[in-house]
């Protein structure tokens, strides 16, 4: 077994045992938040890191899935129908949005997604007869898959963990597949990919759809976790928070967004215990990370470790047989 496989098994075991070693349900809830925000961050990472498309409207899609759940459940339909409808509506909206935003790439994509996200926010805020405006909507019950109640913090944590592990596995398969490779190709050399006969726009469109699906899943978990949804969830700050998770952890890696999600969720919880100005801190961290560690924490740390190893190897090069040759 490789070291990587071993680390994976240990990580999954630690995550699975989290409700036992965490000191209380408050911490289990934070772990749950980290997991569904990690799914959300992975969705954005697919676009930013692998597709080179920066979206600032994803909170709109995330909130859309949540609102569909809240409205449908309030109408008296079952949870299963609500979840299916939320996935379908969000995917359809993602399709339309991607069609519009992909008309221009690069910075234009960012601008259009921002405007679209704000339109969804405006809809949630003003369409009072459906969304109840600023007061938001409650979701009174959580689903009980196969008869298991998810009302306990730890039970809900396990449900989210299972979804999270499936999502991570899917994303891992996706990015290492030929399709993932072609997506990276459209990020780096769109014209060459076009010349090679790849349908660049179609590849990007499919990546957007996959990202939208993951966003919908995260939104559904979010609304069942909070059992409440308000326009705040769709605000531009929410989109920016997730982009921050991705770029702080390291875009274009699988682990980066997960680490970033953990970092931002913990920071937000810790910071809000001491200060009220989370948005100021968010902005400041944004500026600091972009200027000082543009490639993100995970690649930054990897580079740092490599540098340490290299300089150590350099120091002892004379002592280790073959050390000189390796340099």
């Amino acid at each position, binding site marked *: 077994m490789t070291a990587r496989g071993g680390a994976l098994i240990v990580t999954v075991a630690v995550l699975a045992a989290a409700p036992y070693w965490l000191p209380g349900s408050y911490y289990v809830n934070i772990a749950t938040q980290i997991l569904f925000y990690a799914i959300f961050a992975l969705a954005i990472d697919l676009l930013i890191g692998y597709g080179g498309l*920066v979206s*600032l409207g994803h909170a709109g899609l995330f909130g859309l899935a949540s609102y569909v759940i809240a409205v449908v459940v309030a109408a008296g339909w079952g949870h299963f129908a609500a979840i299916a409808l939320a996935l379908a509506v969000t995917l359809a909206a993602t399709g*339309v949005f991607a*069609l*519009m935003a992909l*008309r*221009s790439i*690069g*910075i*234009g994509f*960012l*601008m*259009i997604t*921002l*405007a*679209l996200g*704000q*339109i969804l*926010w*405006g*809809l949630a*805020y*003003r*369409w*009072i*007869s459906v969304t109840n405006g600023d007061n938001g909507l409650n979701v009174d019950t959580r689903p009980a898959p196969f008869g298991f109640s998810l009302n306990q913090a730890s039970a809900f944590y396990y449900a989210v963990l299972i979804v999270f592990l499936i999502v991570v596995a899917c994303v891992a398969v996706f990015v290492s597949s030929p399709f993932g490779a072609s997506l990276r190709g459209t990020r780096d050399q769109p014209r060459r990919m076009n010349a090679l006969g790849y349908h660049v726009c179609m590849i990007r469109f499919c990546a957007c759809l996959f990202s939208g699906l993951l966003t919908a899943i995260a939104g559904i978990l979010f609304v069942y976790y909070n059992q409440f949804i308000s326009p705040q969830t769709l*605000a*531009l*700050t929410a989109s*920016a928070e997730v*982009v921050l998770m991705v*770029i702080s952890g390291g875009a274009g890696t699988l682990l980066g967004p997960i680490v970033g999600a953990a970092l931002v969720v913990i920071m937000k919880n810790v910071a809000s215990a001491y200060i009220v*100005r989370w*948005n*100021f801190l*968010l*902005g*400041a*961290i*944004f*500026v600091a990370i*972009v*200027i000082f560690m*543009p490639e993100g924490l995970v690649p930054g740390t990897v580079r740092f470790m490599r540098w340490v190893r290299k300089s150590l190897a350099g120091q002892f090069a004379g002592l280790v047989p073959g050390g000189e040759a390796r340099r």
Partner: protein
Amino acid sequence: MNLYLVLAVNSITLGGLLFLLSSGFSLIFGLMRIPNLTHGSLFMLGAYLGASLAVWYRLDFWLAAILSAVLVAAFGGLIERLLLRRLAGNTLAQVLVTLGIAFMIADACLMAFTGDPITVPTPAGLVGAVRSFGVVFPIYRLVIILIAVAFAVALWLLLDRTRLGAMIRAGVDDPDMARIVGIPVPRLFTIVFCLGAALAGFAGVIGAPILSVYPGLDFDMLPLALMVVILGGTGSLLGSLIGSFIIGFLYNYGQALLPELAYFVLFLPMLVMLLVRPQGLFGRQAP
């Protein structure tokens, strides 16, 4: 019928404000190739500065407006010089920095001016309305329209008739070539950024008596400016002008006739424009 006429005047007024906001945004985008996501925040910052100068320090309204425009311009210059300049060539990082600053401005304003909206009285001498064709037009709104038209002409003269304007146009068309023939493009960046910030700040102050000043004004205005630029095309003054009035009309009529869907009304023209003519009405094909 009356309602529609009044709405039309309001729409043109909002269009004028949007033109002041989006012309700077569009110029910055055209020259520096980045959407300045602090633009809404500069608008709000100008509005708060103007409101505090005019309401708390009892300064003359127009003096307050000019003073806040200068202050916001200086602030914009600092952002460009100290932060964006360091990240030259990395557009994504530049955009994310402007977003980060936008959040910081929003929170700093909330801290400094509290969450209560500030109402700014209409400047003395412009209170009241004129009556013609059996309709009442508020004087101040007409003045805003005049100011916007004056600025549009001045900007056009600046860009089309002066040496500075020629250099800016060269920078927009081909920054590399402009550099080669000796145009100081980095200095142009600072000038244009300050100009755009000043326009946004000024618009914020003169818009304050109509819109009032409240937290969240920044991210109410920014998407409108984005949509103006998406509709009108980037880097084009005429595009900003036409786009501003289209958005002004749609937003005002939408708010009056379909208040619940006010923002959503803007979605359709954007959809149509992006599908039919992705570069916008007067934009050129992306290079």
